[in-house]
């Protein structure tokens, strides 16, 4: 097309004078695309690394830890079991690295990797027959401790003997979760090496994996194994626990991002309409000149589309790159499958369409600019808006009245500006609400069902001794005995967790948000996920098998339940059959306010001579820390969008005013008053937009988080609105920054001598 060269000159010249604004557009679009791509990656099914690892390693669904090697033939005959991994002899050893000690399970293996649950070598190599000192380390453990192939791996056996081993490889596995969520760390050596490190058979255990035809059969197989091995079983883990421990709460994160991304896209579209529209308005004269030189309407349209559309598309391209980076950052370098092409293409296509439509509207208007450049594009004026008349009525200073009048002389841009500021502000408020909710999780874990900071299992001690040691600690406020069994509703094929902690008379402080706490035998409270699963309401009675014993459960309340998708039944120990309740499997410790869980844990371990197994309860908010990074990043993007809107509104106001400045001065307004007039015009839009956005965000955020809580099974009752102080500060910062941004050009304009004639 013959206009191409001329258009390129124009675009280059225009971009040169508004580099900042152009950069703003690119960054804003890039931010939105980044959010959307990260959201889609997180929401896509393949993000949990467990899925890939389990498939690749042909993992075992159930792992059984026994004192001695179990009867493999009997296990393999259990209905649903297809293959057996092991049994492997495993010894607990202590790894000493830089003076720090970390417990490790050292597992004896053969030179030939097993066909089921084979460790997946990622670096280095698998064990060879001559590797008397060789060890292959589970990768997340190695990364956490900074272990490298070829590096030392000095372990101390229970006997106290030290053995200098050498790392020959790093491997991924689906046998257990990632370190440090899952402890102890895992390392593989040849059986001969293991026999040398820990010759005493009594100090080691036997680990056997069962691979099933169908993962859904896990529970019956586990029951079968328990029946078969009975007392020999020390503990058992299933693929569900491994998967859950690897999960980063990707869905919540993804949904949050998607919400931000989609609303951000709306905000970006508004910002683009405003920015391009404002630019076209300020360029009316130049566009008219181009037309007088022979540009047609459609060529002007094409020119504007090319310039502003290209910025948007560049933003999309940058966003694509950033999206990949952000996704891998959010997943913390875990092996992720790249986003498949359908969501990727729909994000690119959708964003491109939104951007192009947003550009097309003002570009179309630009194309219709009349070609007579001399015609001054003065704003419609003369009439005082209703707001301005109100301002006059309440006797505001003249600058305010004039500014108020000007704010609405161009109605559509004024409302677009308000809207364009309100949408980002609303999202910022929602972001702050999510932040407040996370804070609440951390500072008041009891409100999200995590009153206990530590869980203690008697392990090598008797339950009585454990209770005594725990009770003697000064910082333990209360220790609730508890047991976990599986519960099955007759019509359900899937079992759920039944957690008995405390007794009906002295229940564990669950956070009951609906109904009441259980207070008698047979009464129970449930998480939202369980209520939904069973299709029952509070007050219903359900016939269930709890720990193998039939029980009619009276559900009297709903608790906030962050575990197991909310599919947990909580009840008193006295509701369980005696075989499950006595002795209790563990104690849940509620600490005194201000107590440091790590210190208490260390003290309990010391007091019991390492005989107790003490676990810190992981607060779900700790796993959601990445959300905070996200909120900060999104607030930055949204602030950029707001800024883009603001600069446009301010430039438009200035442009409309450039003509009036001399008149205003002639009317007797001081330079200060003139500047105030200019700032008031934009400032009023800012105040309206920011207040509307904050109000909308504050009224939405609690509901949104509760909705998310409901669908994720945690249940409503966790959503928090940011505190009034936070909101006030946010509003003040937004308005203050906005006024500053408008004040600078206003003052410059007032100082500059504007020739009256150039109109």
């Amino acid at each position, binding site marked *: 097309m*013959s206009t191409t060269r001329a258009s390129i000159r124009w675009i280059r010249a225009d971009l040169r*004078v508004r580099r900042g604004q152009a950069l703003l557009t690119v960054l804003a679009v890039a931010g939105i695309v980044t959010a959307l791509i990260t959201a889609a990656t997180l929401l896509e099914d393949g993000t949990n690394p467990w899925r890939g690892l389990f498939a690749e390693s042909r993992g075992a669904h159930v792992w059984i830890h026994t004192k001695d090697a179990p009867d493999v033939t009997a296990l393999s005959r259990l209905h649903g079991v297809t293959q057996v991994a092991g049994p492997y002899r495993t010894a607990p050893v202590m790894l000493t690295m830089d003076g720090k000690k970390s417990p490790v399970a050292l597992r004896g293996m053969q030179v030939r990797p097993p066909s089921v649950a084979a460790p997946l070598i990622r670096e280095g190599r698998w064990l060879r027959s001559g590797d008397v000192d060789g060890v292959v380390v589970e990768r997340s453990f190695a990364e956490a401790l900074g272990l490298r192939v070829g590096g030392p791996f000095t372990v101390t056996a229970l006997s106290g003997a030290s053995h200098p081993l050498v790392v020959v490889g790093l491997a991924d596995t689906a046998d257990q979760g990632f370190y440090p969520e899952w402890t102890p760390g895992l390392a593989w050596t040849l059986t001969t090496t293991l026999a040398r490190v820990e010759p005493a058979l009594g100090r080691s255990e036997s680990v056997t994996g069962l691979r099933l035809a169908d993962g859904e059969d896990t529970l019956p197989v586990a029951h079968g194994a328990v029946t078969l091995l009975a007392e020999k079983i020390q503990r058992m883990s299933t693929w569900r626990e491994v998967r859950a421990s690897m999960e980063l709460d990707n869905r919540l994160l993804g949904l949050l991002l998607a919400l931000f991304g989609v609303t951000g896209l709306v905000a970006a579209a508004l910002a683009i309409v405003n920015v391009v529209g404002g630019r076209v308005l300020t360029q009316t004269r*130049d566009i008219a*000149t*181009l037309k*007088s030189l*022979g540009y*047609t*309407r459609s060529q002007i349209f094409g020119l504007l589309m090319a310039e502003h559309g290209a910025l948007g598309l560049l933003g999309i391209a940058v966003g694509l790159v950033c999206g990949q980076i952000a996704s891998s950052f959010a997943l913390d370098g875990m092996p992720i499958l790249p986003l498949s092409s359908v969501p990727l293409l729909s994000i690119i296509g959708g964003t491109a369409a939104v951007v192009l439509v947003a550009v097309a509207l003002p570009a179309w208007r630009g194309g219709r600019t009349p070609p007579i*450049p001399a015609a001054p594009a003065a704003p419609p004026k003369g009439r005082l808006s209703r707001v301005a008349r109100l301002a006059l009525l309440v006797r505001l200073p003249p600058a305010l009245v004039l500014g108020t009048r000007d704010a609405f002389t161009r109605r559509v841009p004024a409302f677009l500006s308000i809207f364009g500021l309100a949408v980002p502000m609303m999202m910022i408020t929602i972001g702050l609400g999510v932040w407040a909710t996370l804070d609440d999780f951390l500072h008041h874990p009891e409100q999200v069902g995590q009153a206990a900071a530590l869980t203690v299992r008697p392990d090598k001690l008797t339950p009585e001794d454990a209770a005594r040691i725990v009770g003697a600690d000064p910082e333990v406020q209360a220790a609730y005995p508890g047991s976990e069994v599986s519960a099955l509703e007759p019509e359900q094929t899937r079992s759920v967790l039944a957690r008995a902690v405390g007794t009906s008379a002295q229940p564990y402080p669950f956070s009951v948000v609906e109904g009441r706490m259980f207070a008698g035998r047979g009464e129970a409270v449930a998480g939202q996920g369980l209520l939904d699963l069973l299709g029952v309401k509070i007050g219903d009675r359900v016939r269930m098998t709890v720990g193998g014993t039939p029980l009619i459960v009276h559900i009297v309340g709903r608790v906030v339940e962050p575990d197991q998708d909310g599919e947990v039944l909580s009840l008193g120990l006295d509701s369980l059959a005696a075989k499950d309740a006595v002795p209790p499997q563990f104690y849940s410790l509620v600490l005194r306010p201000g107590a440091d869980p790590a210190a208490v844990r260390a003290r309990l371990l010391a007091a019991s001579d390492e005989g107790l197994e003490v676990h810190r309860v992981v607060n779900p908010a700790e796993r959601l820390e990445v959300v905070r990074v996200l909120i900060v990043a999104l607030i930055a993007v949204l602030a950029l969008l707001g800024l883009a809107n603001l600069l446009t509104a301010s430039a438009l106001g200035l442009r409309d005013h450039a003509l009036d400045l001399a008149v205003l001065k002639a009317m007797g307004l001081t330079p200060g008053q003139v500047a105030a007039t200019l700032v008031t015009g934009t400032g009023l839009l800012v105040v309206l937009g920011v207040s509307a956005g904050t109000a909308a965000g504050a009224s939405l955020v609690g509901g949104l988080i509760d909705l998310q809580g409901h669908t994720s099974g945690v249940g409503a009752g966790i959503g928090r609105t940011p505190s009034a102080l936070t909101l006030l500060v946010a509003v003040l910062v937004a308005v203050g920054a906005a006024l500053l941004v408008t004040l600078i050009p206003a003052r410059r304009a007032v100082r500059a001598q504007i020739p009256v004639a150039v109109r």
Partner: protein
Amino acid sequence: MSPPPPPIVNTVNLVKIYQNGGVPVPAVRGVDLQVEAGQFVAVMGPSGSGKSTLVHMIGGLDARTSGEIWLDGKRADTLNESAWALLRRQKIGFVFQFFNLVANMTVADNVELPALLAGASPREARERREYLLGELGLADRADAAPAQLAGGEQQRVALARALANRPSLLLADEPTGNLDSRNTRDVLRLLSEVHRDGQTIIMVTHDARVASLADRVVSLLDGEIVDDGAVGPARRRPRATAGDVVELRG
């Protein structure tokens, strides 16, 4: 014997009626105007007499209400907006009272723009620009921004831009209306020079002394031609026009 060449501009009963909030405002009321190739026509009249409207219609910037416009023997008033734009690109150059240089572009880019628009290669456009700016004494300002130029210089750049495509018709709407006497003299000297080289010019002015430079003065009043006459040869001494202006302006 071949027929005489058609006039560059021929308007037949040209009428423009603006609608101002429902009230019809007749700006041009039946103008018949022929301009032959190589003529320099000044259009005079008091403010609001319809001078700008007439020139805008001849250049296709404004649509006529009724009547006919013929350019170079071809009917032009029935053209649509894009066809008018193409026509302007090739045949018409505009100079406005307020210069209307594209503020963001350098002087060089402003002058090269029409040539590029008409499909010239960047080299052709550059050569033409260098020639024009050289002729207008602006060669050293090529990389300046329009805002850095004085009013007279800006108008000379606008003139260079208007002439970039060797238009068959140059339309100038009060080209000196915003200039001081020195710059007026410069611009007028340039206009008469290009006219001497054969350029057809229609120039709007309300300054009789400026109009005296033209071959012919058309006077408008309330949208109608009230006087149309060649400037007497006694008043028009060829080759001394610019000096006249200097004398007139004092």
